[in-house]
């Protein structure tokens, strides 16, 4: 690879993007496409945005999330690295120190562990260690969680490790529109972001208007506002609150739909941003309903779900009609494909937990 003027590559990418006319107005796309479009738009807007990782170049990533980026932007903007996760993250740290905005892919949740030292000791701490002199505007994309029948080491819910580490932002989208919106915001962030992508939702579809999302992003950029750090009310309700994130949001919505048939109105909160956490939105809902169930695929012990319960309990104790319940993965290593069904939080287990919220009192 010879040194190339990055801006020249961008100009040619812009030309290509212009010729590949996109369908205007609302269209049905997958979460994968939304993420891919977010990266392409960010690379188009800023020549310092680079994408690299394992198999992300010609192949477009094992989940095809980086599909076409090398073709469009060239091998200097989206490229394959040697197969070494610590190397990928460590090199991204140096690039971010020197003016780039790397967006890197860890191929699977459990394959990110070799990079743990770089993430915890450097990515998370560099800004603090240098009293803000060094910013690390980098995004570490992690396809995570289960539900795809993957063999072992391909289905871990690793978000709690990162959420526990001071200095990392941890985002996880649950909808197609949020895939675009949140990845653009993560790339814009001057702080490092662990971007946890629920891999079982990659092929979930929704009707979105990409141009409207682009306009929204542009307007937010101009105003200096964003959706970062905000939870969303995914379904309004009055009787109890289901608090979920990432892969568990559709499950929570399905549970709320089933409960509605039985005459119970459940509000579903999509946490979206684990760090920073939106206490305000979550607590407003729980104060309103007086009951809550937290749902997460990860093991419950010492996890994001336990943190949410603790926070809500500290802030909403006098509003609670019942102890907050959790529906999480069991405290066992992620199961083999034929057993994952027993492990994953499902609609029935969520409804059982809701039934347990001391309604007779």
């Amino acid at each position, binding site marked *: *690879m010879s*040194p*190339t*003027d*990055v801006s020249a590559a961008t100009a040619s990418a812009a030309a290509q993007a212009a010729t590949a006319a996109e369908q205007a107005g609302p269209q049905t796309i997958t979460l994968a496409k939304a993420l891919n479009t977010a990266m392409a738009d960010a690379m188009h807007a800023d020549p310092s945005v*680079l994408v690299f990782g394992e198999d992300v170049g010609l192949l477009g990533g094992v989940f095809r999330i980086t599909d076409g980026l090398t073709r469009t932007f060239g091998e*200097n903007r989206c490229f394959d*690295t*040697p197969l*070494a996760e*610590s*190397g990928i*993250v*460590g*090199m*991204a*740290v*140096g*690039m*971010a*120190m*020197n*003016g*780039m905005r790397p967006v890197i892919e860890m191929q699977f949740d459990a394959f990110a562990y*070799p990079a743990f*030292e*770089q993430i915890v*000791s*450097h990515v998370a*701490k*560099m*800004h*603090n*260690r*240098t*009293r*803000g*002199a*060094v*910013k690390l505007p980098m995004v570490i994309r992690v396809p995570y969680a289960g539900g795809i029948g993957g063999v072992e080491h391909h289905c871990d819910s690793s978000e709690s490790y990162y959420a526990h580490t*001071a*200095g990392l*932002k941890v985002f996880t989208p649950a909808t197609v529109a949020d895939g675009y919106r949140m990845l653009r915001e993560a790339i814009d*962030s*001057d*702080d490092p972001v662990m971007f946890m992508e629920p891999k079982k939702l990659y092929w979930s579809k929704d009707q979105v208007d990409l141009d409207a999302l682009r306009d929204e992003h542009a307007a937010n950029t101009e105003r200096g506002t964003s959706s970062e*750090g905000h939870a969303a009310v995914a379904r309004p309700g009055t009787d109890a609150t289901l608090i979920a994130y990432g892969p568990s949001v559709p499950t929570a919505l399905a549970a709320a739909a089933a409960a509605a048939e039985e005459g119970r109105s459940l509000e579903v909160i999509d946490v979206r941003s684990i*760090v*920073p*956490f939106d*206490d*305000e939105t979550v607590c407003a809902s729980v104060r309103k309903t007086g009951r809550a169930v937290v749902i997460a695929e990860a093991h419950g012990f010492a996890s994001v779900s336990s943190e949410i319960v603790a926070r809500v309990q500290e802030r909403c104790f006098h509003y609670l009609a019942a102890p907050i319940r959790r529906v999480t993965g069991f405290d066992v290593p992620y199961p083999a494909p034929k057993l994952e069904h027993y492990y994953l939080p499902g609609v029935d287990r969520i409804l059982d937990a809701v039934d347990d919220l001391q309604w007779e009192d």
Partner: protein
Amino acid sequence: MTISADHTAHSEAGAAAPEDAPEQATENAASEAVRKFGITAEDYMLPARHQIGMVGPDGILTPHTEQGTQPGHEYSLPGDEELLAAYEQLVIGRRVNDQNSALVRQGRMAVYPSSHGQEACQVAAALCLSDGDWLFPTYRDSVAVMARGVDPVQTMTLFRGDWHSGYDPAGHKVGIQCTPLTTQLLHAVGVAHAAKLRGEDTVVLAMCGDGATSEGDFHEALNFAAVFHLPVVFFVQNNQYAISVPLAHQSVAPSLAHKAVGYGMAGERVDGNDVVALLAVLDRAVTLARAGSGPLLVEAHTYRMQAHTNADDATRYRQDSEVAQWLAKDPLSRIKTYLTDRGLLDDDNAARIADKAEAVATQLREGLGEDVPVDPQDLFKYVFSAPTPQLKEQSAMLADELARDAAGTSTATEAAK
């Protein structure tokens, strides 16, 4: 006055920045050497049969035929001006090491990993670079950091304990001193990669020790640098010990420099107490890297004359007789003899340099003697670009605690009544 003045002087002397070097000419220094000397590419990448040495412990120039050079591994003697600058930095570096060790004993610093005995490596690592280049140091490389122009007192912030680092890495192009081993080598690779993508001719020198070569990031950094053909000089100070464990327990490779060939890069061994040879080897490595020849690995044989830190007891794992052998190879005395014998250094000049070193020591004593107030609110300021709502809450909680303490109304005070 700081230790930095001489870095500028060195740059003016024009160390190793052949801006007119045609990139393609050295695109593959290995193939050039193969063509020119009829050697194999492996012979070019493997270190020379013997370590490179130019001035022996007695301060006498080694005859050219005994310097360890061979076809494809040729080194020219550095210029007089560069050697004088190096001597000055060596004197200052030794004084800094000894002053800092004293300050630790006086309780002015929490800890100081001294590079006493390794100053030639420290100085050469800093002087071989040009102004736009980056250095990535370890915790033992404070003298190299200062020799790159970072304020001595700011450099000591980590060891004094008021913060994790006291200087701006981007402003100085000096990475934060790294305590986890070899993680900084990958940051060096990233800085070089970003510069290369922008078409800049930046060279990055990344430092680590012998024990650190066992770490996974050492391997990943060398491999990434080689695969992406990046201008990084990996500089291993082999000081024989990783705290207490000798090199033989880290690696049974013929030498650490031999690891280079496995990555497809050139390696070289050099006498780490001979600043003349160090500058010759590192200057050439930087020149080749800048000209587009890819990364290189340089291993310097030196010795940690003192314990790992003040908290360590070196007598538990090594013999005084071994230390005494290395005392005779001191890097400072040999360059002084060499320069004096060549008429480049007279008593006046030596006295002027000693005064400079004393001024830096005074700066350290005064700077570290001051009680710098720490602000507890700094805990929350730099975690993110802007504090999260949770950090704002915690910051307010601490502020309230401190306000109540100051007013004498804390819970503990109440209870005591």
